[in-house]
């Protein structure tokens, strides 16, 4: 991957303001190798400038009790964040764990999907394919878990 480093403040560039959990979900949960291949293929035709190279940081996880909804902090989670420009459009990648490559790829796709002149088909195809794969794997695991469903009978019952 071609990386250029460039310092820039948070407010220098316009940003995509739409929420994007679905895209993030697939990019965070998919296998790393195909994601890296996708990004390597795409980035050859674009100028990538790194604003913040993948860096470890912490996320404090907030929770709440389920009855009175008392909020409290559960603990922190190791996080990697990355920020870059793709043809001058900013992308931000954040994911749990020590994941420098994945956070870079998420940031790249974040910026790439905001580019008006970029062919979005490879990304859309990737998201569709891997979304289905993640979902299928989760359903298989769910089926295995459901085999432990139990209906205890009381001793007095037949």
């Amino acid at each position, binding site marked *: 991957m071609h990386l250029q480093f460039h310092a820039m403040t948070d407010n220098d560039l316009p940003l995509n303001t739409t929420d994007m959990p679905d895209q993030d979900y697939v990019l965070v949960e998919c296998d790393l190798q195909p994601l890296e291949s996708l990004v390597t293929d795409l980035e050859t035709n674009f100028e990538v400038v790194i604003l913040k190279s993948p860096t470890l940081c912490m996320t*404090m996880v907030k929770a709440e009790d389920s009855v009175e909804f008392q909020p*409290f902090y559960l*603990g922190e989670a190791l996080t990697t964040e990355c920020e870059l420009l793709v043809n001058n459009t900013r992308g*931000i990648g*954040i994911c749990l764990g020590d994941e420098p490559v994945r956070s870079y790829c998420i940031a790249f796709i974040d910026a790439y999907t905001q580019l008006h002149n970029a062919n979005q088909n490879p990304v859309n195809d990737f998201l569709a394919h891997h979304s289905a794969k993640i979902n299928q794997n989760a359903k298989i695991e769910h089926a295995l878990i459901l085999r432990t469903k139990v209906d205890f009978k009381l001793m007095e019952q037949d």
Partner: protein
Amino acid sequence: MGYIAVKGGTDAIHNSQQLVEFYRLKDATTPLDIEQIRSQLRMAVDKVMGEGGMYAPEYAAIALKQSEGEVFEAAFILRAFRATLQRKYYSETLNTREMFIKRKISASFREIPGGQILGPTRDYTQRIIDTSKATENNEDIQKFLTEFRKGVDTEHLAEITTFAKVIDLLKNEGLLKPVDPNEDKTLADITREAIKFPAVRSARLQMMARAETGGLMALGYASMRGFGNVHPTVGELRYGPVPVRVKDASGRLRYIGKIEVTEAETISTGRTVKKKQPPSYTIGYGLCFGQNDTKAICMGILDTGMRSPDINSPANDQEFVLYHTEGIEAMGFTNHLKLPHYVTFQSDLKNLREAIKRSGKQKVEQPVSTE
């Protein structure tokens, strides 16, 4: 007299550290792979993350390897590492109703929303040592995985659903103790500001979430045995991953991954303070990283206990519970006893000798070994 530090001994300390490594490696066995620790010592990894106060399975596995499996030490290492990193994000509040359920049981109701799902548990197994584990190889593992996955019809898989909570059944019927409007609901952060007593409930829950499992269990058990007044029924215990979302620098909500948690709601009969007040149930709440039923349940017991302060019951005393279940501090303090206390002890010894001399009593004969 306070503690007087010592100096010197650098070479011996360095050599001691090297000796630790020597004993870890001297048999020249195959190095433990971090991925192996992470997946095959899952429960230990979960415990280290829970007590270290940091969710990072890979780093917890490294810490376990470094500490030769000493969970206290590994949690200490993880918590120290946590302190070196900048906190950049605060997550949106976790929604455990979104959990991908791996385990969901209730001891209170037989029929619960979605049914009782035992999930991965050793609850109903006999604790008989399985000596075949000693010779387990890759072929055995593949054989097990193939067999276990058999019978799942991948063409007709059920959709994944989330489930309503058992506790909602009681809530909807109005059987739960009303929320005290005077309770301080401030969101405290004990990693930024030292806890003060009486502590707000958010601080108590945060401290217990990173407390030591054995400590919580000891006090929870004590409460159930009568050194407290909480002997609850498990309303619901669920375990599985939940999504974590944060707002990025642009203000967009981002999914950043999932963390596994165990959640427990324990039901106790509430004390009726006023005569005209109808009886009700009180709910204790427990939530911790990873799969750890014992910790979540005991957290629920102690949550209930601490809401009825009673200095005669250790499990109802906030300071007693929170300070003494903080495993890393407890371990640190206990182990400081091994460090040189030469000056303090010599001073004490001198005082004792002089006191005996002043009393004019003869030296008391001590029993001696005959060997």
